[in-house]
């Protein structure tokens, strides 16, 4: 049986058109873009075209796009590098990040807190929405950077980045958004948001892993993380991942043309799936408010059973899903995101599963997936001591 992949938020397959675009760069177009000879110049021209494609997809000027090795590098670059915009560097060492950021922001900010930065984490409510009043009152004249993601990777919750950018700017702070889960999937315009820095990652929109980009607003700077080479206009040293850049440009170009129809089609599948799960599997809870969520994602807690067990059994039935984020799979703790949204109810946090849909998802698969989820959850509950206790407490 064909497997059913429902982990598009973790990564996506490389689409055929993108693969085709890349092939010449694994063949005859092999020059180093920094080389002045024909082999180099040819490639240079192509990576500049890819830069223009990426820029167009986010409403930026091409020269404001800096390619890198992915959004982890992007996020770290922004957090580590933003201070160069402030003459009095010491005066702006307060950063504000949401409590549901990806580890590349969240853990990096935590580390910075141990290095003399003042870091404020903004909490979310049970639907995953940011406490905006808290955020507003946290901004001071010493705040240098506010970093809030556009779309959460675990829940799909969308954040009011335009409003937050305004709050930041009113106090002279810079605004960064990790737009990894947004770009290529929903309309996103750096100018409309008025973001100072934006990070994106190619492998979330059907291009290969290990390439991404930062948008840096005109007039703003980042102290480069990688030094010792003039590449990317002195903003990111190192021989370019040429094939990756080409792929990223092409993938975004394609994504732009298909965004509206994907949104419609994939959203319907996700909605139908979620409706059925919540209706047919008892003791479930959606993590993240129903609205104000990206159409790709459904994060569900199945009470009394542990997420990994559900995920493993579904895997056995040919269905790929994830517990929290793939990125936290090196630890045993539930992700800080789900913990935040579960209001500290760790049991519910341990019971969460993320289903994320994408280009190759089919409505016809929903029935099979729902049936398997029902079966797996029922089976695991049949010997769950927590479920047993719950039943007893209900007098059953």
């Amino acid at each position, binding site marked *: 049986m064909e497997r059913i992949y429902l982990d598009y938020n973790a990564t996506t397959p490389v689409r055929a058109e993108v693969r085709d675009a890349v092939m010449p760069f694994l063949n005859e177009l092999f020059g180093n873009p920094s080389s002045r000879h024909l082999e180099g110049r040819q490639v240079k021209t192509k990576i500049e075209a890819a830069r223009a494609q990426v820029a167009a997809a986010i409403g930026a000027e091409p020269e404001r796009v800096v390619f890198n090795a992915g959004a982890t590098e992007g996020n770290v670059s922004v957090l580590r590098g933003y201070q160069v915009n402030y003459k009095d560097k010491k005066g702006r060492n307060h950063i504000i990040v949401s409590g549901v950021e990806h580890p590349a922001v969240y853990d990096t900010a935590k580390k910075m807190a141990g290095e003399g930065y003042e870091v404020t984490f903004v909490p979310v409510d049970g639907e995953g929405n940011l406490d905006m009043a808290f955020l507003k009152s946290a901004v001071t004249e010493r705040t240098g950077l506010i970093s809030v993601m556009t779309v959460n990777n675990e829940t799909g919750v969308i954040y009011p980045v335009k409003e937050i950018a305004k709050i930041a700017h009113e106090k002279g702070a810079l605004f960064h958004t990790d737009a990894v889960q947004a770009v290529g999937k929903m309309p996103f315009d750096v100018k409309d948001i008025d973001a100072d820095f934006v990070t994106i990652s190619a492998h979330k929109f059907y291009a290969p892993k290990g390439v991404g980009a930062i948008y840096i607003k005109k007039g703003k700077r980042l102290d480069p993380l990688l030094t010792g080479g003039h590449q990317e206009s002195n903003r990111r040293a190192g021989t370019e991942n040429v094939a990756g850049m080409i792929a990223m440009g092409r993938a975004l170009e394609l994504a732009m043309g298909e965004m509206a129809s994907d949104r419609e089609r994939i959203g319907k599948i996700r909605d139908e799936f979620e409706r059925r799960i919540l209706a047919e599997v008892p003791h479930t809870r959606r993590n993240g408010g129903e609205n104000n969520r990206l159409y790709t994602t459904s994060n569900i807690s199945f009470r*009394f*059973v*542990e*997420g*990994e*067990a559900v995920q*493993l*059994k579904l895997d*056995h039935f040919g269905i790929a899903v994830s517990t929290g984020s793939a990125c936290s*799979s*090196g*630890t*045993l*703790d*539930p992700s800080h995101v789900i913990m935040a949204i579960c209001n500290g109810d*760790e*049991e519910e946090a*341990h019971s969460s599963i993320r289903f994320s849909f994408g280009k190759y998802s089919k409505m016809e698969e929903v029935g099979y997936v729902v049936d398997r989820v029902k079966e797996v959850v029922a089976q695991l509950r*049949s*010997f*769950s*001591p*927590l*479920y*047993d206790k719950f039943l007893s407490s209900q007098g059953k």
Partner: protein
Amino acid sequence: MDYTEKVMDHFMNPRNVGKIENADAIAEVGNPSCGDVIKMYLRIQGETIEDIKFQTFGCGAAIAVSSQTTEMVKGKSLKEALDLTRDQVAEELGGLPPIKMHCSNLAADALHQAVKTYMKEHGLS
């Protein structure tokens, strides 16, 4: 983080799941906030574990470890049950991912706790 075939077998087809009504000994270890709760039910005849069942809330490793543990002590003496270590269980399963060795490998603890309580209550030593 790969599970061995044997872990997967015990996980997919856990042995001795459920409760024993009017069990002679019961113990529960772990707690939901750690992601693992293991509860052991024992029927004891003399010094022998006549029957054993478990309920587990936890990851694949926790379930497989519970299942494997019950198999290893069913029909064995209380003394043998006390001698069974977590490491022996893990070994019998062909190993566990390092990250799972500590947290999810709780079944032996639950077993020991049940046996010890039983022995205390029955004046055994």
